[in-house]
């Protein structure tokens, strides 16, 4: 039995923490600059001459690998370092309520940063007649994928008191989850491993599932994949918090 109020209060406190410091603004501005830059210069938005946001979405997995750990690194390591975790864990809240509240705060914040890309959507609608259903699916997929990265980062952040270590470890784990679907890596495996194994590795990847959604194919299995990634990592997060809170 979970107390929804507690989850909400913890989420609210965490969110206000982002905006109490420059963290939120620095993150949002860098995110927007990087998405803009990569869409126009790396993804050749104009040269492609297509009315869609594919160049925009296709860069998201790589941006998230780099940027999401910057949000998630402080979630638990800061609580442990400052000792406030002792305060939080002796308030009448359960560990999972705290885990969920913090995760939802980080996810809502990322969602906000993602939504602030709306000028791109306006641009593409001004220039042509895109399939807005596909674009919506892209935003949805990107948001779900961000949740997956955040859940990984939140769990990793609970393992250490040091934010830099949390950042680097989250980045590496996230990278593994992306790279397992990347062409070069899969080619390396497919040269010697059985097809079933290659498929298993690639089905583990954020890339594989995100690609399908961002092309407008909203398949329940892809949604379920991200939902289960989030839940599994959050459960792991609760276990780690319980085990390491007093260290």
């Amino acid at each position, binding site marked *: 039995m979970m107390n929804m*109020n*507690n989850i909400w*209060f*913890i989420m*609210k*406190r965490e969110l*206000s*923490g982002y905006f*109490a*410091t420059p963290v939120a603004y620095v993150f949002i501005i860098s995110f927007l600059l990087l998405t803009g830059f990569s869409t126009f210069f790396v993804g050749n938005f104009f040269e492609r001459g297509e009315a869609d946001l594919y160049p925009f979405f296709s860069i998201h997995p790589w941006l998230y690998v780099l940027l999401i750990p910057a949000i998630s690194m402080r979630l638990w390591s800061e609580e442990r370092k*400052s*000792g*406030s*975790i*002792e*305060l939080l*864990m*002796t*308030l*009448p*809240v*359960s560990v999972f309520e705290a885990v969920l509240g913090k995760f939802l705060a980080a996810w809502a914040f990322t969602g906000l940063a993602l939504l602030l890309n709306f000028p791109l959507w306006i641009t593409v609608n001004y220039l042509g007649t895109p399939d807005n259903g596909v674009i919506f699916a892209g935003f949805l997929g990107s948001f779900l994928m961000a949740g997956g990265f955040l859940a990984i980062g939140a769990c990793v952040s609970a393992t250490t008191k040091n934010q830099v270590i949390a950042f680097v470890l989250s980045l590496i784990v996230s990278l593994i989850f992306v790279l397992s679907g990347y062409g070069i890596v899969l080619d390396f495996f497919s040269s010697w491993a059985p097809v079933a194994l290659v498929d298993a590795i690639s089905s583990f990847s954020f890339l594989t599932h995100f690609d399908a959604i961002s092309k407008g194919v909203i398949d329940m299995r892809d949604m379920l994949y991200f939902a289960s990634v989030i839940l599994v990592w959050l459960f792991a997060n609760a276990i780690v918090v319980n085990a390491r*809170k*007093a260290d």
Partner: protein
Amino acid sequence: MSLRIEIDNLAKHFGEIKAVDGVSFSVRKGEVLGFLGPNGAGKSTTMKMVTGFLTPTRGTVRVCGHDVLQDPIAVKASLGYLPEGAPAYADMTPDGFLKFIADIRGLSGKEKQMAVDSAAERAQIKHVMYQPIETLSKGYKRRVGLSQAILHNPPVLILDEPTDGLDPNQKHEVRMLINDMAHDKAIIISTHILEEVHALCHRNVLIANGQLKFDGTPHELEAMSRYHNAVCVSVVDVDDDSLVAFLTALDYVKEIESLPGARGFRVYPQNGQQITAELSQAIRNNNWQVDSLYAEHGRLDEVFRTITMGGAK
């Protein structure tokens, strides 16, 4: 029963280290229990188990009748806790911080505002309510932690070194605050400041090396001192040898030693009995004029050392 905190055979082992090893005591309503012991004796570990932060290796804790393992949320709801070092969310203001605590404690609307106001007032942090906690001095941070603990007027308070790092004025204020709240709460205070034993506590528990060494009133603790009821006496115009001869002859005197750096002697009674009146009468019967004569209550620092060092053997 008015027992608010019941601790039974509580133990916490970290690998080979027995941080707490079979501690039992209880605290009733209206009682301030001073939890004494040297650093590393297991005070904080015990408090962390009482508040549900640490899981005991064995033993039970009940707070207001709730078992901390079976119903941790009920235990946490009925107590206020100031952890060691008074941690808080550094980038919040006391106002935002206390409102968050009030939310979690289930207070809302007018009730919430009143609880925040009253806690801030009692901890005397009203004038720093809108400054980030990280910019506050150590004394204020401690008081923010204290206001957080008392916010919901809990029946049980657990305060881990509430006066550590405060100046004498601030210490006094915090002690007054605790005294004011004592009548309808059960309070545990850990400290290694021995003057607080008298200033605050109705009862003391002393632990060393994770084990309970003493459980009794401050007076009983003092009575364990070898100075308990010893009398310091000096007499005008009598040479030391005749005074010593006279004192040694008294049948209720056990031992005499000269006072270092001063005139006179310290007289230890047989069996720790009170001898001030008899001694004073005996000296006057000799027609000697008393220069000074006073009884000692006992020295807590000496008792503390004897008990805690004795346990290390």
